[in-house]
């Protein structure tokens, strides 16, 4: 049917559809967006799955992420090397988790990872303080931020070990049902 450039093989598309929450059309659209970030680096033809990653500065220049206070953490969480370099698979994974068809369980796990700044698997008080700092900008002074972080630890830490595990985090999110619709980036 003419010389239509094929981006993905049929099996690749099926694989993408089975492993993420996107449909075929959305996957092709995402590939276009990914290419737009660096047209010279990303080939149109992905049939042999080239292993090309884009650095985090390019990804965070996307309009959907540009102003997000957590953009660097989001990109780091979904990258294989932990430094923010995303391949197309990671890029699609990131946008799939942040889309709206995802169950609450999965969103909670990744939100926990994003808020965990020191990557130790727990949200300690410093992590919470950093989150508060990013969400309020210059509005709160240092002591106020610390006070807020302490209050949150008191409310959320059930087993009293001074840090929030994934279970504590999940428990708190159940009480804020808005979360699933707010933790959502439209692409």
């Amino acid at each position, binding site marked *: 049917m003419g010389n239509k450039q094929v981006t993905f093989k049929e099996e690749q598309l099926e694989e993408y559809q089975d492993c*993420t929450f996107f449909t075929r059309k959305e996957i092709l659209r995402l590939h276009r967006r990914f290419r737009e970030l660096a047209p010279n680096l990303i080939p149109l033809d992905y049939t042999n799955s080239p292993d090309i990653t884009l650095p985090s500065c390019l990804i965070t220049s996307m309009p959907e992420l540009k102003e997000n206070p957590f953009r660097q953490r989001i990109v780091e969480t979904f990258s294989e090397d932990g430094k923010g370099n995303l391949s197309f698979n*990671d890029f699609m994974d990131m946008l799939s988790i942040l889309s709206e068809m995802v169950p609450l369980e999965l969103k909670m796990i990744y939100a926990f*990872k994003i808020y965990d700044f020191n990557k*130790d698997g727990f949200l300690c008080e410093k992590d919470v303080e950093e989150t508060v700092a990013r969400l*309020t*900008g210059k509005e709160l002074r240092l002591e106020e931020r610390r006070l807020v972080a302490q*209050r949150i630890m008191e409310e959320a830490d059930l087993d009293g*070990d001074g840090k929030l595990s994934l279970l504590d985090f999940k428990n708190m999110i159940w009480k804020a*049902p808005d979360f699933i619709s707010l933790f959502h980036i439209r692409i």
Partner: protein
Amino acid sequence: MRRMSVFPSGTSLGNLGLTANVLQQEDENNTSELVSELANLSDRARIQAIRSLPMSYDERRRIRSRAISVKTSKNIFNIDCSQQVSRSFRRFGASVASARQWLVVWHGTLKEIGGRFGTSVLSYFLFLKWLLKFNVFSLIINFCFITIPQIVHAPNISNVTGFRGLELLTGVGYFNQTVLFYGGYNGEVIVSKPPYNMQLAYFFTIAAYLVLCGVSLIYSMSRSFQKNFVLESGPVSGGAWRLLCSWDFSVVNEKAIQNNKNNLGTQLKESLSERLQMKHTMSMSERMKYLSLHVLAWLLSLGLAVGSCAGIYFLGIDQLTSSLNHNPNDLTAEASTLLLPVVVSLINLIVPLLYSLISIMERYSNPRAKIYISITRNVVLKMSILGILCYYWLNSVPENMVCWESFVGQSVYRLLIIDFIFCLFGTFFGEFLRNVIGTTCAPSLGVPEFDIARNVLDLIYAQTLAWIGIYFSPLLPVMQVIKLLIIFYMKKVSLSMNCQPPKHTGRAAQMQTVFIALLFFPSFVGALSMVAYTVWSLKPSKYCGPFQGLQTPFHTILSWTVYIQNLPGTYWVWWIFENVLRNELFYYLVTLIILVITYFLWQITQGRKELIRTLRQQIVNEGKDKAFLLNQLQNTQKQRRQMASFRYQEFDQTLHFNPNWINTLPLDM
């Protein structure tokens, strides 16, 4: 590594010195278990399970291919065609989902609105889109099943008046005998192969549409309730965590994000200061004062509502008598029929403002109570206005008019149009002028916020009118569709030009559930009961409409069942209709069973709440146990280390022979 490791490196368990080999073995076992579990699931369930795995994409892909190969190796002899069938079904489902995306209108616009104003304002536009779907569906089925047959076999129209411009507003005159209103239809059986009974078509189309609406509303309401109202058990947590979780990730506009940061900071400061100062308990006299203020405010609101209803009723009666006496070609008399809708819309505009003034003098324990009470008052006002109008239409009008259903249809039409015009003016004055005033003349007022509750209640009011009017005017959804489309674009433009995002965005999800519930309970149920009363008990007009000459419109069904009874082979339909659906005992039994089931489910919920409380307590206890055991472990380790170093010291000393031992003896020996 993106995986959540079983032993995070921070704990002391992680430092127990398990070798890398052991951990890898553990991982491999877990993966094989996962793969074999996945291979046993059906295709659809497997896809869902794979999508929900919290791993990186490449790992998911590997697990998927392993699971598929295990599954195909198991089924190697077997049912290859059933796999083909299921795969083709899945492909078909995926292509349907893709095709459905073509029908998603306004995707870019909604994304832009969400990006600048956040999710709660976006919920208004999503609500509007949802209502639009209802109306488009109704339009399509009414048009196909009722209007097209009637247009093709047009009845003889008696006096036809020419088209003047006023019809667009009042709906009478030229429109009177068209298919727009009830009077334009007749109930003949269209002779064709097969014969098409217009009466049955009219009845069943409207009934089917209302039933489908009801089912869809109940479904949405229960889904929304399940998602958004969680079991509030355990210690009542304060606002700080909830505020953190209310950060809207979909906002992309820089200024909006800065605004959100400022708002969040302010709210956090407020909640901190609330906690720091001691909450003073109010004295008895203060409490009595506030209670009496509340009672006074409620009395005033209800009084205003009752007064408006009485005014509308008497105005309506007055209009009725004057309209019976006027010459049909008199333009001014026709224009005066617009007086009632204008008065209704004015009341809908002014009284809520009075309500907000009244609520200034009251004091509420939390801002959420304030919003709910204001919504309740507005809903009471709007529903009582609609109730009094329905009473007037169903009681006073049928005795006095010849073709009363068309009259009711035209009244609804007029109400909808005038409401639309007032909505346009309201947006202009309420938002545009207020913005101008707020930025130039009185900067202290500031830019107006987009009032979601008021706008949603307006939409619900208009939709109730549309549902009431659907029996009397089958093509009314046309007007509603056009109106909703224009309102969408107008509100979007006004939003971008004039408003700022709302400051307090708490509980947007619960408000969404409340709005859907309001759409179902007073709005849809009220409209349905009015239509049901009309169909069941009122005598239709004798000379116009599809049900002319019958005792009640419901008699069509009765005569149809008699006809069916005489047909061979369909006795069971008649039997079900006569003995099950028309029998009251059946409904009593069904109600009793539903009540019993509800009671059981309620008891289960109570039991689960208790279980949650116990489990929470158990977590706290386990935490204490863990802290205690860790402490013990550390103490034991410290002791062991101390003992080891002590022994080493002893051993050390015996080797150090002091050659000056003789000088260490006491001198007086």
